[in-house]
């Protein structure tokens, strides 16, 4: 199926929200791929970070939602410090996560984590994970 792109998709609510929450100009990205080249979690991602921002530029919310990429981002900010165009991709990733989380859809649930694991994990791990991955 061909993807329909129009001025409507380019200026969709999703694009506006991502821009607002992240404070980043999505169009500043010229798709050089440096973010993906250096991303430590990339090996586990189905789409590369630069592809996520490209999909966001095009307003293709569903494709982004179908990808695990933003949930695998560890907010290490390697992309942020190396982006030649000064795009804070860490913030873009956070914005996209928040759009889902604010619909009360959690990525991790405390209930789903085995008891043993919880007792073994330091607070710092649990708190940060819940902060990043739950509503």
């Amino acid at each position, binding site marked *: 199926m061909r993807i329909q792109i129009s001025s409507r998709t380019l200026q969709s609510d999703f694009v506006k929200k991502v821009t607002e929450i992240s404070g980043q100009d999505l169009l500043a990205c010229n798709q*050089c*791929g440096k973010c*993906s*080249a250096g991303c430590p979690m990339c090996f586990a991602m189905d789409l*590369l970070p630069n592809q996520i921002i490209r999909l966001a530029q095009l307003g293709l919310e569903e494709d982004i939602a179908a990808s695990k990429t933003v949930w695998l981002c560890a907010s290490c900010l390697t992309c942020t410090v190396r982006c*030649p*165009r*000064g795009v804070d991709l860490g913030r873009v990733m956070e914005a996209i996560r928040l759009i889902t989380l604010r619909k009360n859809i959690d990525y991790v649930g405390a209930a789903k984590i085995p008891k043993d694991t919880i007792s073994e994990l330091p607070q710092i791990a649990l708190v940060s994970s819940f902060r990043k991955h739950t509503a």
Partner: protein
Amino acid sequence: MGSIDGSIARKALIIGGGVAGIQASLDIADAGYEVILVERTPSIGGHMLQYSEVFPTLDCPQCIMTPKMVEVGQHPNIRLLTYSEVESVSGKVGNFNVRIRRKTPYVEWDKCTGCGECAAVCPVEVYSEYERGVTAQKAIYKPFGQAVPAVFTVEKRGYSPCRVACPAGVNAQGYIALISQGKFPEALEVVRRTMPFAGVIGRVCTHRCETECERGTVDEPMAIRTLKRFIADYELKAGREKVTPVEKTRQEKVAVVGSGPAGLACAYDLIRKGYPVTVFEAMPVAGGLLRYGIPEYRLPKNVLDNEIDYVQELGVEVRTNSRVEDPGKLFAEGYKAVFLGTGAGMSQKMNIPGEDTPGVIHALDFLKQVNSGDKASLGRRVVVIGGGNAAVDAARVAKRLGADEVTIVYRRSRDEMPAVAEEVDEAEKEGVRLHILAAPTQVLSQGGKLTGIECLRMELGEPDASGRRRPIPVKGSEFILDVDNVIIAIGQVVDKAGLPEELACTERGTLSADPVTFETSMAGVFAGGDMVSGPADVIRAIAAGKEAAESIDRYLNGADLCEGRPRQLNKVEEVSKEGVLPRSRAAMPMLDLKQRERSFAEVELGLDEKTAIEEAKRCLNCAGCCECFSCEVACERKAINHELADRYEEVEVGAIVVATGFELTPVKAISEFEPDLDILDGIQFERILCPGGPTAGVVLRPSDAKEPKEVAFISCVGSRDPEHGVPYCSRVCCMYLVKQAMLYKHAVPDGQAYIFYMDIRTTGKGYEEFVQRAVEEDGVLYLRGRVSKIFRDGDKLKVWGADTLTGKRIELSCDLVVLGMAMVPDPAARELMRILGINTDMHGFITEAHPKLRPLESSVPGIYIAGTAQGPKDIPDSVAQGSGAASKVLALFSQQEPVLEKAEKR
């Protein structure tokens, strides 16, 4: 604006001798007008001369440029001023007055034949701008084979920090450079240009040079003192011919009183100036404190004897057993000037009860006795009071004479001890104990026999006048050390007995002398060394003797004593350490502790030849040229003159063309790429590809000279990158990188080339076809994405990139990486733009009068632009602009005067 009075100066100034400047010069000169071509470096040619073949035709730039360069050099209408810079510009279109600084190459170019004998003997290697660091060049150099003019230039950057730090100004870099080449006798000659004491100072100096040594910021300072000692030992071992006496060209006799380091240094300089010099020494043998104060295990007598002999062989007469009671009388004996350097030989007293008890002795007396070969007997337990070198020497001597327990009592902390730290360490190793933060309060005796010494503990308070923390007694902390002998070494003062009243003294009890000229209050009498400074180190005494010799020479010539003194030395402040790998300093081999017992054999054993050469090679050659003057000797035409100075000239021209070219941003600006020998910028790789380059066109990587089989080329490094300050496209990297990839493939057919790119921007004539050929015929693989990180992994460089076309991360294991760094305006030309008063953009590129319609004119009428100084561009565009700017100049020159208005108003 009205018409300009007088005529237009129909002469053009071209600034920058790259391909654009050369083209502009030739066009204007061919049209019959005079041209002055100013180039910052010693040769014209610019960056183009550094390249291998150029795209898309793969011409050899040396082949196509050399005829043009030669034409510039020989053109009757072109005056070529290389190694020159524009200092100031005034006036306006039609009549600019330009002041040009002609930097001295220290070679008279009209005499230089370019034979290269000088570079062959030069011991110093420096960074080569032409080879871009891929190989080094000598400090006297011709930039490259086809250089125009084909002459040599000396690179001097000022005085090395070691040389500036040395009170006597010994040229350490000079002798170290010669040692690195195995030229030991020549190295010793460099020391002897300043002073005769390589062996002595090579052993006992406090080596401030090492404190200042720039190598210390990389790993450890150079072992400067040890190297100096090495060349002296080398000669001593090999034996030397007797020196030919200096011809005495002067009538005026000079008397030197005292044969210590100050006196002998003074005599040495005076005899070499042709004065008859007589040294008067009260003791039976010459040498002063060097002989009677420093123990044999630290300074063997044969070393000292040899160096005193050397001074005598030059013609200095030394009269021993000759105490001079009244220096004033020397004038009556026919001496025209006198130098006093009798030292500070009287021990200071402690001023505590019991000080005169038998068994309490003074360090200098003790050392003198031992050094004279007289027997000194000590008890089993010895305490030495003091923290200077005399104290440490006395303690180590006491140990050697068989004392069981030797303790140094010092009132401040170990850090404050004035003795050389290494000596203190060795003393401890030999079993000398340190009792710091303690001061004696009284000497105890029973029945006139010394039994002990009472001390008080101290703590450190606020810093005193000397900057060291003041020791404060701790109340009630008295303690007693049982001893058989006490040696006092708390300092010496000048023995003023016998000095005539006319000689003024200071409050500190030293002889009063001018700190610069060393004149005393008595006409014709000069003084230096410990006598004036109070107890100090040997090198300062030598320095004083030398300065006094200079004063005596001036005095006897009736010249001004102060003019130009003290000499201001222009110290090299910034020394590049790029690519310098840490390597530890040569350790001094030491005599085994066991063998030191009861023995006065020398403790420090000295370096062997191989170690000395290796150590000398660690020198960073801070000053560039080391002023060993080997080149002067080698030059048959006598063209080299290290004393030459810059010259300035004023010219009047009607028009100026600015063609100052570009540079590349430094690789190190991209901090996520780990610095590595095998990561090169585009121009460095051109040198490696170039048939006339350092590898003769064989592609070898710098780290291990192996042929690289996998090579990554990376575009847009630092360009199109606002975060690194360069938002613009560098415009030529797409083309030269694919050309380099192709040339690499031609050189290494079984190798693989990769190009990381963002967009392929090859818009010139024949360029796109070139790219396709590289891909199809040479298998060059394009990967679309920027590289995020490069690091070394064993033999390989790991390159982390991405291929955004497939959405895959890429890791390459490469042998060599070439970075297409951003083109920026040559930073060396930044100041010039201000001098010319022309506008530049935020990146420093020259702004055109109109971006579309007046691309060759700057914001100032009569100043035109050519080449990459205006913005990144390729060779044909630069040449076209060169011709274009020339035509602008010619149009101006063909006008009658009133029409100048047009040039100004447009």
